[in-house]
């Protein structure tokens, strides 16, 4: 029971940090699930996060994976509800008010300001994730190749990411 309460608290808190996307919450996600609660190891977190990028739908469904690891299916349900309910209600109510905010002179400043702060948070998340994921030259090359490929072409990101995994396996067999 206590674990379900912890899951609810952690993911409700994390959900409020996802300004500009799930990656903005990654630094706190790592601190809370790895360092504070020891639910997963850092490599396990990276693996779930990356699998979550491959799964269809919203890219943070990996919160269900962590819930499952901690407390089975009830854990997954609590993690999902905690992660989506608080921001969901906020979006519902602000969405209804938004048209009334159209002429509010602070609306554009807030939107522009949160835009740059959220890019900063995504960058911080990418740096922290990179420290764990890029362990050697091979994995640095993989990240750079995927980056360039996705920047220059319109290929579905799922393909290069699956290919990255296959390169990892190939390198394990050879090495």
């Amino acid at each position: 029971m206590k674990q379900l309460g912890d899951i609810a608290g952690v993911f409700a808190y994390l959900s409020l940090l996802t300004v500009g996307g799930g990656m903005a919450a990654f630094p706190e996600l790592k601190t809370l699930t790895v360092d504070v609660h020891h639910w997963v190891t850092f490599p396990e977190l990276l693996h779930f996060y990356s699998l979550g990028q491959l799964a269809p739908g919203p890219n943070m469904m990996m919160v269900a994976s962590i819930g499952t690891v901690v407390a089975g299916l009830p854990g997954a349900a609590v993690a999902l509800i905690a992660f989506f309910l608080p921001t969901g209600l906020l979006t519902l109510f602000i969405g209804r008010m938004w048209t009334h905010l159209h002429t509010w002179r602070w609306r554009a400043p807030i939107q522009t300001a949160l835009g740059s702060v959220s890019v900063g948070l995504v960058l911080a998340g990418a740096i922290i994730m990179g420290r764990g994921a890029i362990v050697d030259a091979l994995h640095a090359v993989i990240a750079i190749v995927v980056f360039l490929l996705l920047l220059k072409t319109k290929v579905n990101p799922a393909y290069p990411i699956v290919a990255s995994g296959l390169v990892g396996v190939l390198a394990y067999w050879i090495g």
Partner: protein
Amino acid sequence: MSDPASATPPSVSMARLFWVFFVMGATSLGGGVVGYLRTGLVVRNRWVDDVTFVELLSISQTLPGLNATNMSILVGDRLRGAWGALVATLGMCLPGASLMIAAAYAVGIGSDDPVSKAFLHGIAAGAVGLIVVVMVQLGAKVLKGLADYVFVAATAAAVAGFGVQVPYALIVAGIVAIWWHRPRDRIRK
């Protein structure tokens, strides 16, 4: 032109609402969920027009929460009220959530297998590349002046370099950035 049309949302059954979002939730492989949303909502079903879609997307991106679920809530609410928002979100999340729950059990079973570890480590490196691309694309859209880049660098350095907790960084950098972009008196230039 688009105003009278978009003011009256089309009538959509709950089952249809769930199904359309479920299909998008099941087929949007590889992360680019916004593209799938536009195809499903604007092009195929004409539930919202392009102007409304961009407006709702900008709300989704400003508020906390993921773009995909925020869009589900906003569109579901426009079509069928609060219950519509819930049904659309459930449809959007159910496929990915089921897969990730299954993945948790599968990884638990194969956690000692070095080949699956090598695979997962490979995709983690690939995912870093993906996230940097997403960041560059987001940045190209929202960063306008030198000051914005300073806010980005300061926020990232505080969190990733000095271990500042995200909420503090968010609040402090947010307030400074909002003040920087504050509405100015036109007379004073």
